[in-house]
């Protein structure tokens, strides 16, 4: 939490651990098709990894990975990817989020839906990650810390 609680072991451990958590989060996002997991859980794990860095190495240095001011814009971007997918199918003649109207060639109807799901899972994970980090940052800033 505070600078006094930092120690080198913790910093090193969390810096080593973070990429693995992030890798696992990506796996969770894309594994959503086959087993438990998906955009939300993956996004939350990505956020957790960043929060871990924020907690251990401090906000200044962990900002290199994810800037504070990015929070809501990236969150909005994630939601926009989602809504944009829906809007795209709508503009291409289908209903909102009717994935088989996606402009991807050589894919069957079911595969198009699969692709659409993947697309929005990416949007969801991006939004969730960014916003959760932003909430943390705002709480820290609002309470006068970090």
């Amino acid at each position: 939490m505070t600078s006094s609680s930092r120690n080198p072991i913790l910093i090193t451990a969390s810096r080593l651990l973070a990429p693995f958590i992030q890798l696992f989060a990506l796996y969770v996002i894309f594994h959503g098709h086959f087993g438990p997991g998906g955009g939300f859980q993956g996004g939350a794990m990505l956020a957790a990894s960043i929060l871990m860095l924020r907690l251990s190495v401090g906000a200044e240095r962990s900002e290199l990975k994810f800037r504070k001011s990015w929070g809501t814009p990236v969150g909005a971007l994630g939601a926009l990817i989602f809504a944009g997918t829906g809007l795209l199918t709508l503009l291409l003649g289908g209903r909102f989020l009717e994935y088989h109207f996606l402009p991807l060639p050589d894919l069957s109807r079911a595969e198009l839906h699969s692709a659409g799901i993947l697309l929005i899972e990416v949007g969801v994970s991006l939004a969730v990650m960014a916003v959760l980090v932003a909430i943390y940052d705002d709480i820290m800033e609002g309470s006068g810390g970090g």
Partner: protein
Amino acid sequence: MRKTSLIALVLFGALLLYASSGLPGHGDPDGPSHRERSRVGSPVAAAHYIRHAQADAASPNIVTVVLADYRGFDTLGETIVVLTAGLVCYLILRRSP
């Protein structure tokens, strides 16, 4: 306030007790939400999902298909909720840069 909350709690508890007397048993496979057809003959969503999810979206995890495809709009709403919470925190807490 305490007295009114107590009354509210008692009423709420009584309502829940009353309701649970008519709920289908836990895990009862014949519950209306588990059937294939509703009382008026309309298709019941859950059974339809289980039957068609894999064929419709080429993925075996039904929950994901329902979440992102059949009821994808809910999930869009969910993402918006998260974003809203982020914006509210920004609005309340962040100081001017």
